[in-house]
Each structure stands twice: as C-alpha cells, then as structure tokens.
C-alpha cells in the first residue's frame, strides 16, 4: 500500500521543506535534479537527456495520511480499505464536474477562437484543472481568488456562471465585465474574483492587499467574522519576478491570510523553468521568508485538496501564509497563438498520461464512489451547459456605443465628492468641466 505524504516546511530556525510524493518525481527519469553547479545553461535539449538519480531526502516524513492518492491508483495500486477515503461521493462528483467544466469550457474556447468568435489573447488551462478545483472548491464565497491571464477556469471554479465568462470572451455586453475586460481580465465582485491580470506577478501584491484588508477588518475595524482567505494563483515564471518576493516578505511579516499557489507547469511561454531559475524548487523559497513551503503533485486533485485544506485552515486561524508549489502541466500552448514547438512531445505524452480528469475518474470507479454512467451523465450535463453558454453569448448584444466612456471612474463624472459627502457633479451650482459622456 502506498502512501501519499504531504509535509510542510515549518518556519523554525532551520526550516526544512519536504516533497509530498517523491514517487511522482522519481518515476520521471527525464526530470532534472538540481545538484551543486548546474550545467543547464543552454538549450533544453541538453537537459532532457541528463537523467540523474532522484534526490534522497534524509528527513523522515513527519505526517502520513492513511488514504491513497489518485496517482497511486493510476499506478495500479489498489486501495483495500474504503473507510479511509479522502472524499465522499458527493465531493467526488463535485470535483469531477468542476474539472470537466473547466476542460470542456477551454476546449470550447479553442473552437470558438478558430471560428472567429473569440479574439485577442486567449490562454487555456487544459491539464491544470486539478489545481483550480482542488483549491477553489474548498473556499467560501467571501474568500478571494486572484489570478493571472489564464483565468477562465479559476472564474468557473469560483462560481462565475459559464454564460457570463463565455459572453465576456465574446466581448458581449452580458459578460461578467460587460465586455470591457476580456479573456485576461475576469472580475466578479459577487464571487470575489478580483482579476484577471495580464502582467505576471501583478496579481500577487493585489492578493496580498486583499488579505491585508481581511486582517485589517478583523483587527482594526473589529469585524469578528472577517476571516476571509485569499488565494493568489501564478506561474513558475512569476517566481523570478521581484514583486513575488516582496509579497512573500510582507505576507510573512504581517502574517496575512493568504496562500500563494504556484502553478508550476515548467514553461513560461517557451522558456523552460529549469533554464530560467537558479534554484528551480520554488517551495523552498517559502521557508526563506519564514513561511511554510509545500510541494504537491498538481496533476492529482486529491493531493492538491489535502494540501489546500491545511493551508486554508492555517490562514483562517491567523497563522499566516503558505507557499504551495503545484507541479502541473498545460496540455496546450501558452496561448492559442503559440505554436508550442519547443516542448518535447515525449514530455507532453508523459503528462497527458497523468491527466487529472481521467485519474479522478479511475479513482472514483475503482473505489466504487461512482459508476461510469453517473460520470457520463455529468459530462453530458456540462456539454449542455456549454452549448447553452455559447448560444447565449451568440445571441447577446454587443456593448452599446455609450458604454465606451462609462466606468472610467466610480464617481459618475470624475469631479469628486463634496464636503456634504455627495458627488459634486450632482450639485447644480458646480459648473461642468471636462468628462462629458
């Protein structure tokens, strides 16, 4: 019986970080191990054919969960006891449905893009669904999610209706941002999704600020129920950006309720993470700032969920931030305009075999949590949801011309608030200056 062990590096005097399931890494002979002086200055080609034996970590695993993970089942190890399931049937179906929604939605986006209904930059999330579902399905509605340009599935997992996201992508007035944001700028105040940022690393300080506001509300404004947690999603390339480190520092310094989720899909457009980073093990950067750093297999939704539970609980308690590195992979290119020529087909095939959706499906069937029929019916349901979303978006109107100048300011004409607390432009004595609509 194999175990999935998730271990957290605690920020004590000699912080130590431990990988969750070495198996998934060690079974991958093509993964480069960083040891001593690197020889990876050069093309990715030279990296691929340097298999080195896996790192032996001398630190014992401090905690083991009794249940098996999805990948263990995929590797052929059956779980005997059903009393130690990580999820119930309902939870399993919820996770499955969310991942299927994410996958089918992104596939539909690709189709719509090639038909000319969607335009601009579109970055698809295929293959990474386990991270989004694993984390976001544990959140409350009031918790915040901040994402990057690869944000469609984060929006869907957080609860933004597929119709709203699809019509936003089509640029219609019924989109979640009335067509003013687009693929890379999904915002939903109702669902506490505050972006959608095109610049890498831009969302991290904003997420840190959202976490700060939660702490401020609790401690300064004395709102006892303000225990909201913030999730910041970003990629491996972002971990070489200055803002990331500034925020790790401040989040740890002020013990903010935030979880930094690194979706390490090994590639920043065409730049391999291993070529770009002095120490590719991102989870280690957490303890350097005095916070917990965890590595988890991001292709396994149950492992991600377990790690997420602990991190979210830590944040809600007020014990500070966590840095979670999810090893994942995007099956498609960086965006729909990316020819994706630099990635090795063998690498892609390897990760395709670890598809999180088929892994969860296999797990649920083999553990008798669901049968083929139920899962198929979920897929059918999602197909219908998406067909409806596309139809709705097709039929939605384009934004009217008058919408061009709206929403530049929250203050209707941009003249500020008077001493009586009302908008100055509503004062009949105030002569209109600029900002006509």
């Amino acid at each position, binding site marked *: 019986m194999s175990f999935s062990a998730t271990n957290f590096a605690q920020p004590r005097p000699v912080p130590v970080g431990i990988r969750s399931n070495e198996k998934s890494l060690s079974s991958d002979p093509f993964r480069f191990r960083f040891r001593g002086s690197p020889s990876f200055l050069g093309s990715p080609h030279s990296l691929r054919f340097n298999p080195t034996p896996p790192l032996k970590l001398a630190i014992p695993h401090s905690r083991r969960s009794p249940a098996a993970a999805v990948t263990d089942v995929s590797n052929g190890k059956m779980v005997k006891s059903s009393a130690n399931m990580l999820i119930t049937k309902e939870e399993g179906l919820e996770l499955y449905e969310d991942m299927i929604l994410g996958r089918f939605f992104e596939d539909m986006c690709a189709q719509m893009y090639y038909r000319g209904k969607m335009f601009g930059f579109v970055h698809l999330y295929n293959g990474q669904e386990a991270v989004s579902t694993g984390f976001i399905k544990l959140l409350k509605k009031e918790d915040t999610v*901040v994402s990057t340009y690869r944000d469609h599935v984060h929006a869907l997992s957080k609860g933004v209706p597929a119709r709203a996201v699809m019509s936003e992508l089509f640029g219609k007035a019924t989109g979640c*941002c*009335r*067509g*003013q*944001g687009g693929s890379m*700028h999904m*915002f*939903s*105040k109702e669902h506490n999704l*505050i*972006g*959608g*940022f*095109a*610049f890498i690393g*831009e969302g*991290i*300080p*904003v*997420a*840190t*600020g*959202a*976490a*700060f*506001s939660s702490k*401020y*509300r609790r*401690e*300064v*404004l004395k709102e006892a129920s303000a225990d909201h947690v913030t999730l910041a999603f970003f990629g491996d390339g972002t971990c070489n*950006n*200055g*803002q990331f*480190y*500034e*925020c790790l*520092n*401040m989040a740890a310094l002020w013990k903010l309720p935030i979880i930094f989720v690194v979706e390490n899909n090994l590639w920043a457009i065409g730049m391999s993470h291993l070529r770009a980073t002095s120490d590719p093990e991102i989870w280690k950067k957490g303890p350097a700032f005095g916070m917990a750093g965890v590595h988890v297999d991001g292709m396994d939704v149950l492992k991600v969920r377990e790690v997420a539970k602990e991190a979210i609980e830590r944040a809600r308690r007020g014990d500070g931030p966590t840095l979670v590195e999810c090893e994942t992979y995007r099956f498609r290119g960086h965006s729909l305009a990316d020819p994706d020529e630099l990635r090795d087909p063998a690498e892609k095939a390897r990760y395709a075999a670890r598809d999180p959706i088929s892994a969860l499906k296999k797990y649920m069937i083999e553990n008798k949590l669901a049968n083929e029929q139920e899962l198929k019916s979920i897929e059918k349901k999602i197909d219908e949801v998406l067909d409806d979303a596309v139809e709705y978006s097709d039929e939605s109107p384009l934004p009217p011309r008058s919408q061009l100048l*709206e*929403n*530049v*300011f*929250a*203050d209707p004409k*941009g*003249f*500020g*608030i008077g*001493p*009586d*607390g009302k908008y*100055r432009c509503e004062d009949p004595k*105030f*002569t*209109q*200056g*600029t*900002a006509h609509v």
Partner: protein
Amino acid sequence: MLRAIRHKNILPAFSAFRAFSSSAKEMTVREALNSALDEEMSADPKVFLMGEEVGEYQGAYKITKGLLDKYGPERVLDTPITEEMALICLLNILQAGFTGIGVGAAYYGLRPVVEFMTFNFSMQAIDHIINSAAKSNYMSAGQISVPIVFRGPNGAAAGVGAQHSQCYAAWYASCPGLKVLSPYSSEDARGLLKAAIRDPDPVVFLENELLYGESFPVSAEVLDSSFCLPIGKAKIEREGKDVTITAFSKMVGYALKAAEILAKEGISAEVINLRSIRPLDRSTINASVRKTNRLVTVEEGFPQHGVGAEICTSVIEESFGYLDAPVERIAGADVPMPYAANLERMAVPQVEDIVRAAKRACYRSVPLAATA
C-alpha cells in the same frame, strides 16, 4: 545612491504674503497636509497610511508627524523598501509591493493613502498605479472601484540630481482612470487632500518638497474639518485682463511674482492655479483666454508632451478665434536635471522666464532666451 532627506529649515524662495481680507491665520503646507490626514483618519477608520518612514520616522518630510502615536502601527504602516524590485542596493526603493497591496486593500473598501518618498520612486510601482488602480474600475465594468490616494513630493527639489527631480504630472494625467491633483497653497493642500481621500477613485496627489515649509494664510472655512475643494476646478489666483498665465504647484508662486513685475510694466496678468491636472478645468482656462486673448502655460516638467502642450491644444480646439498671439509654453529644460546649482537654475523655469514669455505674448519685443 544617496537620497538626501531634506532638512526642515528650508528658506522659502520668496515670501508668500499677500493681502487677504479674511482672518490671517497662517499655516504651512506641511501642517495643512498633516491636519488633513489626521482629520480624515479620525473620521473614517478605513483610512490608513502606508509608505516608507511614515511611522516611526514621522515621515520622510514630516508630513505624517504624530500620526503613528495617535492611530497606532496598524493604521500607519511603515513598509519595507518594496516598491518593485530593480536593484539589490540597500538604499534603493522597491515600491510595487506596497503599492499593489494598497490597491488590493482598496478593492475591498479600505482607503489607503500610499506615500511615495518622491514620485520618482513611483516609477517602480507605476504598473500598479496604472494597470491595477487606474484601469480596474473600467476592466471590471464598475464592480471594483479603487479608493486609493498616492501622494508624495513631485518635481525638482534643490540639488538632488536627475533621478530625484522629475515632474510626473504629464505622465499620470495622460491616463484615464486616474485623477491627478497638484496643490499650491495650504488651502489647496488641505482641501484637495481631503477631497482625494474621500474620493472613490485612484488619485495621484503631487505635492512639492520646497513648498512644505511655506506658510500661507488660511481662513476659518479652510480650518473646518469638512472643508474640501472640488476636483476638476481651477482657481483664479489673480484676476487680470491682458494675458492668462496657467501654472500648478510651485510655479503658481513664480507666476504670481511674475504678475507683480508685469503689473509694474502695465501688463495685467491673470494667474490660474490649475489645482487639478486631470480632469483639467478646460472651461476656466478657455473662459480666461477668451477674456485676455493671450496664454502662457508654465510647468516645471519636461516640455515635450507636457501639461502645457495639452492646455495649448485645448485652447486651440475651443478658443482659436480668440487668440491674438501664439501660446507661449514655459517648461523645464529638455534635459535630465543637472546637479550644479547654476545649471539647475537654468533647467527650471524662473520668474524672469515667465515675465519674458508674457511680454512676448503681448508683442513687446523681447528676444527669446538662448536655447540649450
């Protein structure tokens, strides 16, 4: 890189006395800003300050003096040096981190007042000022508003060199979604800062280091805690009928001095204190030009694509037929700010430059100053 913290005892470049009919209580710009912050923080617990040295150091220019003691470290946050990482040097300012944090807090209804030690350092955080603060209300179609204020000294100080002397009014004012304010007197400072803090949108508040120590008379109305000035309205500091001079921040003082000199020579100049660079009070400027028929724009920043260029175009678009002379544009020299005192004096507009330009606009023959 050494950053010289200006000592408080700067002698004002000129006397700011003028005749006021109401009570002549005097207040320095520093006191005005401090009192505005104090009152707004006590009125609304969601207002908090962030910046380098705003707390224990009492503010790099002592604007936030006393606020840490009064409101505590949870509302007056000394931040680490984290604007946006550029260099590893200890003294370098890294600001994107806390600027972005301010924006994130503002998304959730808190009202941060972020201090930049000077606006030069805001360049390291400009991504957050523009992309996450200014554009968010639009990108989210009105769902997320960002009630944040970015304040700090802007423009040239004295002898601080090229990297500490740039004026950012034109850069920020070109961006939709931002409001850009630039006070001159204590009354402006108090009223505009209070308006900025109450405003639901991101405001860039450009102060001037050399004005901090200057005193101005303030009326009782200004001292009232609910006093605030309208955003988007300019003030006519001095009425006149021959030529209009527009200016903002320190240049208003210079323009007023120039108007005195011109008055002795028979030219009656109207001085407009812009107060608000974005939205620009085009109607006041145009009304004034329609009255005087001549315009001189004064600013401290670089000439190309500057505030003066925008005012000139606005006047040409709306009041072309009323102009009797080409618009004269006075701006800083088109060079990075030199260090040597005499060169620095040449790189920043002086009162004589404004006088000369006004005379040119009035067709009194005065040769153009030598160009660099």
